[in-house]
């Protein structure tokens, strides 16, 4: 075996993985461009078009980041849940790649949701953090998916890591509806839902609702872009490690 082959192989694998999504090259780049443009429009809508809140003032604009980011993190964990089931049934590595990518992106988003919440809570509630149901269950959600990533990193055998992670991803998803319903089930300082089955009609003015939905759409696109890119990279990593494995076998094999 020629060891100098390896860098070229690495490069071509990672390049190849980019093109593998839906078969057309540059797909991820186009999606990134679209997301970036729409994010600029989103910023304009949030800061220039959305009205200032009567009670909370300018700080309420963080709402147009906080809520979409939280919703997208729930969606990410739903993807982990579905892909985990898919992996346990089919044992195909594609499912596991999607689950892993969604968990990583989901952890980024739930972290941002917690941070924007902390920044918003300080001027409005008067404290950075308080141990109330919505905040506590969300922190637990964060811990569950951080544990998910740690588990993946610590189990040396990739097959086993995938099975354990699928189990954590499926069971851990239980916390997502608990987070959503926490403000309904228990006394809380957190405002009740403005999106989904618990939303009150009239909680938002039409213009605020429109900006919120646009922002949700943009963050959804950002999530899709990150998910596809990370999944493709993950598949590339898998192919690379299987090639390395084959190469090592080739070297150690007597024939």
């Amino acid at each position, binding site marked *: 075996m020629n060891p100098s082959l390896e860098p070229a192989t690495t490069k071509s694998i990672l390049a190849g993985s980019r093109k593998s999504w839906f078969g057309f090259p540059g797909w991820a780049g186009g999606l990134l461009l679209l997301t970036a443009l729409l994010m600029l429009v989103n910023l304009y809508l949030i800061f220039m078009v959305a*009205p*200032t*809140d*009567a*009670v*909370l*003032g300018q700080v*309420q604009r963080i*709402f147009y980041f906080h809520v979409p980011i939280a919703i997208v993190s729930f969606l990410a964990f739903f993807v982990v849940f579905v892909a985990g089931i898919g992996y346990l049934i089919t*044992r*195909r*590595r594609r499912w596991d790649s999607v689950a892993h990518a969604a968990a990583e992106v989901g952890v980024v988003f739930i972290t941002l949701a917690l941070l924007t919440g902390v920044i918003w809570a300080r*001027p*409005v*509630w*008067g*404290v950075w953090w*308080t141990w*109330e*149901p919505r905040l*506590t*269950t969300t922190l*637990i959600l964060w811990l*569950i998916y951080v544990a998910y990533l740690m588990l993946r990193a610590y189990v*040396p*055998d*990739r*097959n*086993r890591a*995938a*099975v*354990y992670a699928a*189990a*954590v991803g499926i*069971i*851990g998803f*239980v*916390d997502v509806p*608990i987070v959503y319903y*926490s403000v309904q089930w*228990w*006394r*809380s*300082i957190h*405002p*009740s*839902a*403005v999106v989904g089955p618990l939303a*009150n009609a*009239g*909680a*938002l*003015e039409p*213009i*605020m609702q429109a900006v919120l939905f646009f922002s949700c759409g943009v963050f959804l696109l950002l999530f899709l872009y990150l998910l596809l890119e990370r999944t493709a990279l993950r598949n590339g990593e*898998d192919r690379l*490690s*299987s090639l390395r*494995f*084959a190469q090592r076998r080739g070297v150690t094999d007597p024939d």
Partner: protein
Amino acid sequence: MAEDKLNPAGFPPIVEPPTEESAAADSGRRTRFRLIILGVVLALAVGYMIYAAFPGNALYFLTVSEFMGGAEYQDGRVLRVSGKLAPDSFQREGDGTLAYFRLVDKELADNAGADAAVVAGPSLRASYVGVMPDLFFNPHSEIILEGSYSAEGVFQTDNILVKCPSKYQSLEDEPPADYNSPGYSS
């Protein structure tokens, strides 16, 4: 090999797989066992979280009437009480930082409406040293006090939290100016 059958598109193991069939079957059983343990631990953790946060075991706050109706809450333990600022009840001691005010149940304050100088029903007299939060005097705010009841019958507040309505509306629709100042409600 058994592992390959389980895993037609499986990953290459980092450690070379054991060649004996029995070892593979053994590790499979251990995997399943660990998986079950992991699942049970996680399920218990989530279950405990639900149990611990369930009403009756841990409430985030008490209402004013619950607090005034329960002698066990008034023994000086630290807890949270929620209500609305009683109209015209806020007063400062001279130019100092010590302030006194009364909280009433949210429903009472809401039903009494705008002209309610008198609110019938239980009220909690509270003291606080420091600067009031921005939205403390806003008539829409619910106020959550963290502190304990003193022997003199005053709730000594350590922290004030303000809960805002889950409703957002634009500034143009509401009268601003002194909206968040003590004088607004009168």
